[in-house]
């Protein structure tokens, strides 16, 4: 490859210079903003009080082990719930898209389920499932808040995720279905082999976004009395009359969410790159 011309080298140098300058501007403006925010907060009249109540290092250190142990429960709910949500959501979505009069009752049930559980606030589902179900005193109904909390979360989130999947399925161009059927594939086969793989690719970023939302909503199982991170923090607050444990629990949830958010970004970026045929725009 011949070496670039003098002109091209000067263009590259100028672009590098611009890139450096905008990085510098971004850096400086971020630092200035952080400094101003810091000064405003620390010079507020109530700051010493707030610092003692919300940011006490000794209370934080004391409460951390219990809260971290509680977070383990949240993680379990997250993993089990997340997997179940994927399965149930996909099932509901597929049922909602099957055609043919024979499936009408199923379709109606699926639609009603989605309408219902997308409408009810998660916390109310938690109360209904967590306290209502055991109150029936049926044989074999579990009473553990872990199980009941997971069920409630799966019920709510599957309704959302089903709609994400459905949007993905419908975004696959009808010509793809036509091509699959023209090869003699059944509805089921064309769904599984042709439509769903393309649909999944489209909706992965949206699904990851829902997963990040799920990550913090697992903290709501504390209302059922499960000793998770939030509940542990609550107990610690009750013992110390200091709100620092809440901040600790919040930070732990953020730490949990950050890697997921980055993964979601990376996946979306990859999908974007794959779609773009190069070019600036």
């Amino acid at each position, binding site marked *: 490859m011949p070496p*670039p011309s003098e002109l*091209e080298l000067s*263009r590259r140098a100028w672009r590098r210079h*611009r890139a450096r300058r905008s990085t510098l501007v971004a850096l400086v403006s971020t630092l200035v903003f952080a400094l101003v925010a810091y000064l405003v907060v620390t010079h507020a009249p109530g700051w010493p009080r707030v610092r003692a109540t919300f940011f006490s290092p000794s209370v934080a250190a004391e409460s951390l082990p219990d809260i971290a142990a509680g977070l383990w429960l949240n993680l379990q709910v997250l993993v089990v719930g997340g997997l179940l949500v994927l399965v149930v959501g996909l099932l509901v979505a597929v049922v909602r898209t099957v055609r043919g009069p024979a499936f009408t009752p199923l379709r109606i049930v699926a639609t009603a389920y989605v309408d219902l559980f997308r409408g009810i606030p998660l916390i109310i589902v938690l109360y209904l499932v967590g306290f209502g179900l055991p109150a029936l005193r049926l044989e074999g109904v579990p009473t553990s808040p872990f199980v009941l909390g997971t069920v409630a979360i799966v019920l709510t989130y599957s309704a959302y995720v089903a709609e994400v999947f459905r949007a993905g399925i419908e975004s696959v161009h009808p010509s793809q279905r036509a091509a699959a059927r023209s090869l003699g594939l059944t509805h089921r086969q064309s769904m599984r082999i042709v439509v769903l793989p393309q649909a999944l690719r489209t909706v992965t970023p949206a699904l990851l976004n829902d997963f990040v939302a799920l990550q913090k909503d697992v903290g709501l199982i504390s209302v059922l009395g499960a000793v998770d991170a939030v509940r542990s923090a609550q107990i610690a607050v009750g013992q110390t009359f200091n709100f620092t444990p809440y901040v600790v629990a919040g930070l732990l949830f953020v730490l949990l969410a950050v890697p997921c958010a980055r993964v979601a970004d990376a996946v979306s970026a990859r999908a974007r790159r794959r779609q773009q045929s190069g*070019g600036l725009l």
Partner: protein
Amino acid sequence: MNGPVLDLRGVVKVFGTNRVLRGVDLAIGEHRVVALIGGSGSGKSTLLRCASLLETVDDGQVLLDGEDITDPRVDADRVRQRMGVVFQAYNLFPHLSVLDNVTLAPTVVHGRSRADAREEAHALLDRIGLADKAGEFPDRLSGGQQQRVAIVRALAVRPRVLLLDEITSALDPELVGEVLGVVREVAAQGMTILMATHEMGFARQVADVVAFLHDGVVLESGPPDQVLGDPVQPRTRQFLARVIDAGRL
């Protein structure tokens, strides 16, 4: 202005390790029509994308009215305001009516009044015989009609130069004529045009210069009768023989 409207000098474009353009020189004088021919993958589209600043060149220069538009200090958006581009796949905005597709750039980019832009759009649509389609959405139009609208959309900003990227390649054969008819008319009115095309017959009739792109350089260029009728380069002859074999000349 006596220099060329669009002047490509030693344009290089690299994708990864693939040197698509290896130093293209091509000048398009005012009111001139230059047809760019060449095999599939010879870089015709890339060249047009470089000229319209949809790609950054990796070396060389593109001058528009003598101004180096590949200088990174130049505002690419302002440069593109002076060019019209028509794509192979029409690229009309499906959520806007035909009229709104045409008036979008004149009103939003050039700040002309809505009434004024509409009036001109109607006049332009009338000239291509699509005045009655102004309120329709693009998906209600045939490919040929869509492409004619796309030409009008590019013309509505009164560009210095019109870049046409194989604008008939996606069309049914019987619709090609109506689109080329519009190009012929636009050319006759003195528009400066650079077009990549596979329509050799059309190039012969309309173009002032035919340039044969091969292996990332302009291998041969000149009057259509010479390049298409009596090419100097064996590569050009080979390419034209294949086109004739395919029954397209």
